[in-house]
């Protein structure tokens, strides 16, 4: 349906694109950038880029892979720009909503996730928070399924070590 709308060059495809990819892409970008505001700005850039390249997208075999590729290409450029302007970086820590109760180790969990290498963090976030399978994640990231699984495993091991003094 989305691909057909793109083929027809129908502007309604924008809504379809949003419904299909916005949630997953935003979660992905939040975990890559560890910032809700940056993720929203990059999501806008990604959507504009997708719309400009809609003719290629219409012919793409795997829409998801194409869309995530655009997101993966946009995010590093944003990170480079953000490094140049460190003042913006410090403000935003709300990319992951953690429970407010005092007995929950929410802040430590968010900090531990932020300390993980990006490639491990993105797999964990996609798996836990977007309920994607390893097969789906491997399709999005254009990686072998075994690589995705091992990234998840190593990431979880690191998280366990970082959170070991917290009662799980």
């Amino acid at each position, binding site marked *: 349906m989305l691909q057909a709308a793109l083929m027809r060059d129908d502007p309604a495809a924008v809504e379809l694109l949003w419904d299909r990819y916005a949630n997953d892409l935003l979660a992905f970008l*939040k975990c890559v950038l560890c910032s809700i505001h940056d993720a929203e700005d990059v999501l806008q850039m990604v959507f504009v880029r997708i*719309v400009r390249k809609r*003719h290629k997208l219409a012919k793409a075999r795997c829409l998801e892979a194409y869309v995530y590729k655009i997101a993966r290409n946009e995010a590093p450029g944003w990170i480079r720009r953000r490094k140049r302007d460190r003042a913006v970086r410090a403000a935003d820590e709300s990319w*992951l909503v953690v429970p407010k109760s005092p007995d929950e180790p929410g802040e430590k969990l968010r900090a531990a996730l932020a300390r993980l290498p990006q490639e491990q963090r993105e797999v964990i976030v996609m798996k836990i928070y977007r309920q994607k399978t390893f097969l789906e994640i491997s399709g999005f990231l254009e990686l072998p399924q075994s690589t995705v699984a091992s990234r998840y495993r190593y990431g979880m091991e690191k998280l366990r070590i970082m959170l070991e003094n917290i009662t799980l």
Partner: protein
Amino acid sequence: MKDEHSENWPLENLLTRAHVPEPSPQLKQRITAEARKAWDQTSADIPWQIPLRRLVASAAAAVLIIWLANFSSDYTLAQWRPGSACVATQQPTDFDMLPEMPYGPFAKHMVLVDRRSRVIDASALSDYVESVRRLLDETEQNGVSTPLAPPGGSSRLAPGRADARSYS
């Protein structure tokens, strides 16, 4: 594998207590509006324009390169002055008579070097001859002549060698 799953379970349970926030309706409105704007700006006839633009750009680049090469060549020739007539009227050397040889450019280079060195030698030689002639003239004018035979008519040969002819 089962152990690993059971090991991960408490951590996964902890992770699922947090969540990644969904995109807000305002964000949807903002991004879809930007995307629609981008949609309108990029017209549908772009796909066939892209190769045409690339072709025009390549042709322009080729023309520019050729023009620059011609300009550089003309400029270099304008700067060049023919060498001395001596070099210009050199008779072809044996190297020129030779049929096509391997290492042709190198051999030609050697011929050129040889010609240059000969020109330098000829001028040096003429200077030398001139200085010798001047010396001889001065000597003649002074009326000093070198003795052809030692005074007293005695032979320059060593006394013991006087009968050396008898051996031949």
